[in-house]
């Protein structure tokens, strides 16, 4: 078996965004379930938070290939 440690690092760095994404959508879903009319307020916030978390994961992906 061979490979590069970069990919192990990328795997480790993807844990954080993965948990973050799960928490963001869990909060979004429970928020909408409790108060369905809040959907239009919560949706952009949830997706922007998701974008922030996802940006970190993609940083890891890019840096794993570049460095």
């Amino acid at each position, binding site marked *: 078996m061979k490979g590069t440690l970069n990919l192990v690092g990328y795997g480790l760095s993807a844990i954080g965004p993965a948990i973050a994404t799960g928490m963001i959508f869990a909060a979004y879903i429970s928020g909408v379930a409790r108060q369905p009319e809040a959907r*239009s*307020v919560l*949706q*952009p916030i949830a*997706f*922007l938070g*998701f*974008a*922030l978390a*996802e*940006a970190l994961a*993609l*940083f890891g992906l*890019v*840096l794993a290939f*570049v460095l």
Partner: protein
Amino acid sequence: MKPNDDGAAWSIVGYLLSGLLFWGGVGWAVDHWLHTRYFLLAGLLLGAGAAMYLIWLRIGRKSK
């Protein structure tokens, strides 16, 4: 909900990826050309920031 609202959510990853790849690629090219090291990081941050701005324009602004 308008038919197009789901589309914006799916395009988040696409925007982030293209932002990071394009401006990160520019930074990498500048690094390669000038033999420096920090333009790559600057390009990546710039790309991520620009992509976030674009996502805000697509999703955040629409709900106002």
